[in-house]
């Protein structure tokens, strides 16, 4: 067990931006929410999955809504303080631990806003090891884990309890509900036991986020290259170093879909690179050949500062290093690739591990 204090939270937040793979929402607001909880209730225990008893009850805590709404209608502590109680009221079941659904972006830290006041620890794991845009795209889905019973709570006390036939239905119901309430709500979802969690979750996901954040921070302090620090630490692959030449972006069905084209610098001089995104970065080609695809993580970092560059922000003139990090093993199974692989997002290629393509 570790204790997450303010400094640890900052590292985790920065690292979660990398795990957001270009999406996941700006974690700043989530950090503020979690920081307030830590200031008020003290450091929050973070426990290893191995320490969790098999018969323990666990649930994901997450915010749901639209990033453009979240920065205006700020999430309130009150919903995160209540969301677990509401699920307990609905299910008649006590929950012993909370856990993030995604370690990438905003939702990496929202469970801390629930854990502090509820007096339960956070589990050092998540259901993605990255960020994905839909509620059913989590590793428990691969093992028959159910998103429901879930509870969704808005700031007026509107509470939605649901049992759904499939996890995709859970996404549709939750999305409709959150729209009605104004596109920002807190959720508790995917109840599971400790034994199930050990089988289904991405282990150590929050430690990974913290490690990445700390690597970037320390590299900056020591004036060494933050990109290399992250690659070394995470066994990542440098996919490209280059300058963004053009960015095409369009909004379709509520998603930001586009591609960034880059020309090479340094060792990649004379080469061309394209990064494809749908909120998150999903695929990348170098000289026309795929060099990384979802579910592996693809992230552009500013060449000198190592600052992660979200796909919503990237534009002409940025000098970037694009890195590829291996997805968790759960995603690399046939079932995992079925849900999260390149074909799922419309790219005509099979999934190949990023380190194999590079090697």
């Amino acid at each position, binding site marked *: 067990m570790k204790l997450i204090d303010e400094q640890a939270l900052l590292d985790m937040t920065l690292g979660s931006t990398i795990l957001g793979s270009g999406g996941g929402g700006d974690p700043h607001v989530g950090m503020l929410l979690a920081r307030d909880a830590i200031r008020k209730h003290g450091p929050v225990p973070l426990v290893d999955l191995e320490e969790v008893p098999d018969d323990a009850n666990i649930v994901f805590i997450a915010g749901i809504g639209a990033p*453009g709404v979240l920065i205006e209608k700020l999430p*309130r502590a009150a919903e995160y303080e209540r969301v677990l109680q509401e699920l307990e009221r609905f299910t008649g079941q006590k929950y012993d631990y909370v856990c993030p659904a995604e370690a990438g972006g905003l939702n990496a830290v929202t469970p801390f806003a629930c854990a502090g006041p509820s007096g339960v620890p956070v589990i050092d794991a998540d259901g993605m090891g990255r960020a994905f845009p839909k509620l059913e795209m989590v590793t428990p889905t691969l093992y028959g884990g159910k998103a429901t019973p879930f509870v969704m709570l808005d*700031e007026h006390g509107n509470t939605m309890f649901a049992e759904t036939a499939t996890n995709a239905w859970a996404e549709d119901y939750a999305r409709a509900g959150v729209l009605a309430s104004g596109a920002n709500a807190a959720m508790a979802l995917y109840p599971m036991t400790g034994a199930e969690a050990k089988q289904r979750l991405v282990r150590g996901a929050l430690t990974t986020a913290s490690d990445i954040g700390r690597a970037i921070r320390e590299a900056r302090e020591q004036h060494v290259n933050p990109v290399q620090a992250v690659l070394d630490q995470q066994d990542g692959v440098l996919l490209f170093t280059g*300058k963004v030449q053009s960015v095409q972006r369009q909004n379709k069905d509520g998603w930001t879909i586009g591609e960034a084209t880059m020309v090479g610098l340094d060792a990649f001089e004379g080469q061309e690179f394209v990064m494809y995104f749908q*909120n998150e970065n999903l695929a990348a080609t170098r000289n026309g050949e795929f060099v990384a695809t979802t579910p592996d993580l693809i992230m552009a970092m500013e060449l000198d500062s190592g600052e992660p560059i979200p796909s919503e922000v990237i534009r002409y*003139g940025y000098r970037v290093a694009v890195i590829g990090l291996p997805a968790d093993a759960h995603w690399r199974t046939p079932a995992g690739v079925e849900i999260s692989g390149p074909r799922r997002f419309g790219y005509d290629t099979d999934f190949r591990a990023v380190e194999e393509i590079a090697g």
Partner: protein
Amino acid sequence: MSLRIGVDVGGTNTDAAVLDGSRVVASTKSPTTPDVTSGILVALTEVLHDVDAADVSSVFIGTTHFINAIAQARGLEPVAFVRLATPPQSMFPHSGWPEHLRAVVGEHIFVCAGGSQFDGRLLSELDEPGLRAIAAEIRAAGLRRVALSSVFSSVNPEPEDRAAAILAEELPDATITKSADVGRVGLLERENATILNAALLGLAENVVDGLEKVVAGVGIAAPVLLSQNDGTVMSLDRARAYPIFTIASGPTNSMRGAALLTGLQDGVVVDVGGTTSDIGLLQNGFPRESTVAMSLAGVRSNFRIPDVFSLALGGGTIVADGGAVVGPESVGYRITEEALVFGGSTVTFTDVAVAAGAPEVGEAARAAGIDAATTERALGVVRDRLVHAVERTKLSEDAVPVIVVGGGAPLLKAVPGLEDLVIPDQAGVANAVGAAFAEAGGEVDRTYSLATRTRAEVLAEAEEEACRLAVEAGADPELVRVIDVEDVPLTHLPGGGAVHVRIKAVGPFTATKSELEGALA
């Protein structure tokens, strides 16, 4: 009555320029004084040797005074802060502020039920009795400045307007700054800007009065206007209410001046000062604005501000290690004592540039001893850094002109590989020229629901409103034009239910609406 005077009050120098049409007929540079106005007096007196005060039709002033006040937490007042949302809220704007600012502004935070949803529906019914009770607390605390915000006031301003009216009724002696008048989408950042504005109001009153007096004192009867961050101007009355809009006018004035002096409307502008070079993109004759929240003296804010990148390269930048190290250290304003060409003993960028043939500054002979390898290496570093910074500033790979202004502009003439730079005459007073080259503007920055209207209808309405606002601010109704349109749908909202629109219109400054009405009456 055809002359325009521009004054730019920088950290070090106060520059003034007199324009006849687009021709510079007089200009001067004098040291900035702590009280601002005596420096302006010197500059105005100087240029009025060359022109007749009676021929001056307007005076435009840009000043960094308010940003300095914020940075030093000097002259700020405590502020009561009221948010319309769904109580109880847990995230407040003050949490990320530097201690010294927070201590001055205070933490008088009130939350009242109110606000809107992203599509304009009410978030919570405005709690009028609750708001009146808050007003009583503010009165009891003796606070005179109120910053008021409402969730999504950029979509639906009505709750904020109504609350402002109620607060004004209850607190007749207080001034109320509404967040929708100050900032953009992003509640915490908009509130931060609103609070800073409210805290500056007392100081603004004094400074603006001082400006009025100093201009009248030199015998100029023409209207005085202040440069805003976005390159447009505002009346002194508006400056009294929105001092926050002036705080980034320095780089903006330089970029506007670069446009006027070269006749170019698009390009990259490099303003070379003593310690840094400010680099920004000129689009349609105006600086490209930052679209992301930025830190203002340690406070996350979002409002109209030029997207300027500061490079540690100026005339006083220290050259070391045989030319391999150029900056970031600088001798700054001590350049006239420390640089070789001024008889000092520190090798600066000025010295290597002069040694390489830049127009003479100080005594060129004193820089002659720098060995050629050092010069070549240092200028190579400068070139790479500038090329990189220019690349970073551009929005596409298309070739655009690079315009260099500022006191250090001529130094770049000596840098090999940068022969295409456009360096206008009068580059040294581009900022004052930019202040004088003022246009009036109006901007709409709002999220629109598309439930009942098309995107095209929404854009047409926003354009019309931006033009109307520009005319109200003094733009010539015949010549008002839209210079920037941006619309971004909100993501994670199936059906494309809402769009965020930013539109800006400008026109040559004639007179503000109130002045026009005054003239007609």
